[in-house]
């Protein structure tokens, strides 16, 4: 069986809609992983031991196991405890939590790297511990950590292909649907690879731009 790329136009709309879903999942999971990462970092550094330890174990487990396995746990686990969420939500939560754990490591390092004098100055000015953390320390920590967080988000885009296995109809799964009716896996998977590559390039360009903007403001 040779190659025949002429089958693509007929199914192009299905695949492109899938690409939009991939973008939606990536953005959703990126937001979850960003704020989740900050929250986990603050808990890991400042919460009392009773709260801290369960989160440590959770982070340890999520750092040491494959994303695919975690997606199965979240998708089927939620169903088991009686929460029947749509696959899309399970996908966003799974991807988001996975990368939140990785982002949290970055945030922890950068929070600790913020000069101690900053906290002392804020406290002297009458800010509470929480206020100092929220208004002085975290904003500075975020600025320093944008480039590596950006790299994690690019990794997240590529890993979003995995949510196809729990039935989220994003780019990969929509290609599989098209393949189901055409039996042309090579053509459609190459098309999908090209689309991922383009989204990836756009994301990288945007991130480089953001990085430059941050450097200027120093």
């Amino acid at each position, binding site marked *: 069986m040779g190659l025949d790329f002429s089958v693509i136009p007929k199914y192009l709309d299905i695949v492109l809609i899938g690409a939009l879903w991939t973008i939606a999942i990536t953005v959703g999971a990126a937001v979850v992983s960003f704020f989740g990462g900050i929250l986990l970092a603050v808990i890991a550094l400042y919460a009392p031991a009773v709260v801290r330890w369960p989160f440590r174990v959770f982070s340890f487990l999520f750092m*040491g*196991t*494959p994303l695919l*396995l975690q997606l199965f746990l979240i998708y*089927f686990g939620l169903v088991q405890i009686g929460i029947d969420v749509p696959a899309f939500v399970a996908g966003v939560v799974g991807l988001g939590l996975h990368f939140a754990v990785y982002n949290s490591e970055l945030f922890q390092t950068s929070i600790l790297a913020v000069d101690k004098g900053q906290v002392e100055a804020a406290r002297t000015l009458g800010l509470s511990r929480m206020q100092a953390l929220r208004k002085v320390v975290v904003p500075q920590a975020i600025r320093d950590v944008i480039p590596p967080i950006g790299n994690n988000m690019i990794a997240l885009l590529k890993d979003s*292909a*995995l949510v196809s296995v729990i039935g989220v109809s994003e780019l*990969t799964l929509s290609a599989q649907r098209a393949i189901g009716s055409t039996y042309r*896996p090579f053509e459609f998977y190459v098309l999908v690879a090209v689309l*991922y590559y383009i989204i990836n390039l756009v994301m990288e360009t945007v991130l480089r731009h953001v990085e430059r903007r941050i450097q200027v403001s120093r």
Partner: protein
Amino acid sequence: MDYELMQRVFPYFLEAAWTTILLSVLTAVLGLACAIVGASARFSRFAVFRILGAAYVSVFRGTPALIQLFILYFGGPQIGIQLDAFEAGVIGLGLNAGAYMTETIRGAIIAVDKGQKEAARTLGMSRWQAMRNVILPQAMRLMIRPLGVNINALIKGTALVAAISVVELTYTAQRYIGSTYKPFEMFLIAGVLYMIIIYVVGLGIAWADRKARII
């Protein structure tokens, strides 16, 4: 928590863990081989090789590993490449890991002080001699830890071959979650086995890193 069930299925997970280990080892070896070729291409005197090397890294890092596996395994037969799922897994994951490792090796070589190369060239060494006798020995030390990070990611990445039905840890967990409806128990068994593998490999990397240090 259903301990009795966990005990009953554990032997099957253990068997699957061996497949995961075998996959990881083969993928790491193939990945390193690709990375050595890739990094050599990126430092080549000839622009063609430099461009090919850069294209390899860009394409394999710019698209999902899962799609690369699917192209190879499902699309391969259309262009005359017949592989079973395990072979496709090793080759697909190895090519993917090779792209990341190429960048690691390149980074380590660039990180060696420029003066070292200049001094070697001044002493009359050829480009190749300077690379082999002066730069690479220093770069090797720098690349052990980051290669360890690559290998760590690669071990977790082997889970992807579950999607092309290779019976390894994640596939086994998925199958038992489907038949027993005990996702947490199955996740725990597979997760602990993954972490043991990663921990042992981590010890090996740390040992190599200690050995390679001068001071």
